[in-house]
């Protein structure tokens, strides 16, 4: 019995020894009564917090009185009135439903999910094609002179501003900064890169494009500088299906 107690005390002292010096000094300096008092206060505070944060909200929900559903079939007059109201409501619902469904266009549009890096091409109110894409990486690049670029794909409603085949990439300043290179002058030949954007590009405005990629293994991951990258087949389908003015929804 005594040896058990001694063992326990020894293990406790080992635990206390492993504490930081300041904490060890504080705890060892406390008289036994003080430790009891402190633990009582801590328990009281925890109980109080539990009461305020969890028990009272649960009680609030629990005491709500929900009236029993009563049937409204009273007099014949009331029943007739109810049927008339129900029929009226059904007609209104049908009309509203038709109106709501009519809001989805029959023409082709593209939906891009930047969190999941997936795209959905719709035509005639049905998904025509879906697959992986790559969108903005959310990297905030800071240059030595404190210029900042945030590589994110904009969200909201857009429309196709223009379509091109065999697009050429005119590299912006950040393309040189992120590679640790000196920024060349505007229109310098080193700014133009051929064949990196795939066979087609569709412009969303403000420099954002939907284009192809050489880095197909990154499709499905957030790695771009804000543009939307697709694989070759998907890009071709999107290029053929969407016209200038077609809607693109990015979220």
């Amino acid at each position, binding site marked *: 019995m005594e040896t058990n107690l001694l063992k326990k005390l020894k293990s406790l002292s080992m635990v206390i020894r492993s504490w930081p010096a300041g904490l060890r000094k504080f705890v060892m300096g406390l008289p036994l009564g003080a430790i009891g008092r402190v633990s009582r206060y801590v328990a009281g505070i925890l109980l109080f917090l539990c*009461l*305020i*944060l*969890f028990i*009272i*909200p649960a*009680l*609030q*929900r629990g*005491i*709500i*009185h*929900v*009236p029993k*559903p*009563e*049937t*409204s*079939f009273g007099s014949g007059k*009331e029943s007739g*009135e*109810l049927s008339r*109201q*129900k029929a009226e*409501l*059904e007609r*209104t*619902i049908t009309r*509203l*439903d038709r109106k*709501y469904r009519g*809001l*989805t*266009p029959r023409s082709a*549009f593209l*939906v891009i*999910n*930047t*969190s*999941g890096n997936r795209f*959905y091409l719709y035509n005639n109110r049905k998904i025509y094609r879906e697959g992986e894409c790559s969108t903005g*990486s*959310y*990297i*905030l690049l*800071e*240059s*030595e002179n404190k210029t900042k670029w945030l590589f*994110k794909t904009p*969200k*909201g*409603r857009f429309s196709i501003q223009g379509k091109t085949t065999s697009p050429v990439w005119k590299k912006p300043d950040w393309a040189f900064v*992120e*590679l*640790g*290179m000196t920024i060349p002058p505007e229109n310098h030949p080193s700014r133009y890169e051929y064949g990196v954007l795939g066979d087609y590009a569709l412009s969303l405005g403000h420099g954002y494009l939907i284009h192809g990629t050489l880095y197909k293994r990154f499709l499905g*991951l957030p*790695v771009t500088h804000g543009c939307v990258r697709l694989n070759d087949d998907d890009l071709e389908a999107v290029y053929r299906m969407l016209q200038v003015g077609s809607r693109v*929804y990015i*979220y």
Partner: protein
Amino acid sequence: MRIRPGTILLIFFAAILAGYLTACLIAPGHRIRRMNREGGTYTLVADAKRVPDLEFPDLAVPLREKAFLESRIAMAGSDSIGMSVNLRDSILALEINGIIIHRAKISDIRVDRFFSALNNQAYEGLFSRPLAVEREIATIDKEPVIVQKAPRDTVEALNSVFMPDTIRRIPAFVSFDLSGDLRLCLVDDGNRGLGRFFRKLFFYTRIRSRQAGENILSVLGMRVPTYTPEIRVSLAGEDIASIFRALYGRSLVAILI
């Protein structure tokens, strides 16, 4: 008999707590009675013609469906992305201009009893228009920005190629405080590890402590605190991230209970 200062403090504290508890407990009933009398937050239902129509309890189902459609059509008028929560079909969707751009299956639903205590008129007054997101709390970032210093030369650039982390996944919990004093919580239905438990605990502690703060202010101002009923839906974490990151500013929300 001499009363110790500690005892006085304890009595004072107990009295405040009792007052707080009483005020909190009468808050739901107070709000339900007021809403059932006035017809919801929006008092657009004041016309005398329709009031008797709404008194039939049997009309609850079609009336709610009508309110939901009206709300979604109104939401379609906005150019921002909105959210529709259809608890009847267990579907949460993102919509813009009436086009559904994301659809997520709800795996579990918990609706406050408050909504069952509302009459048709109060329900319609509350849900026939989209509600706006007033505040949000989340365990995930709205924009997961990674700050990166530009490399000094090409050698440093080669050594600092960015690769996105595809393994680490933070349990997603999001709360939207909506106009009309409602709260919509999106809960990650993913793995049930200890990390998830603590995330969830901190998340609810944040929500409840803010609520408790508001309640205390109301009690100190001698007002009945506003009861905020909660709708809690469980979804896949990926869906919660997509939905949370798609909604900006005072986004609109349509709800069907």
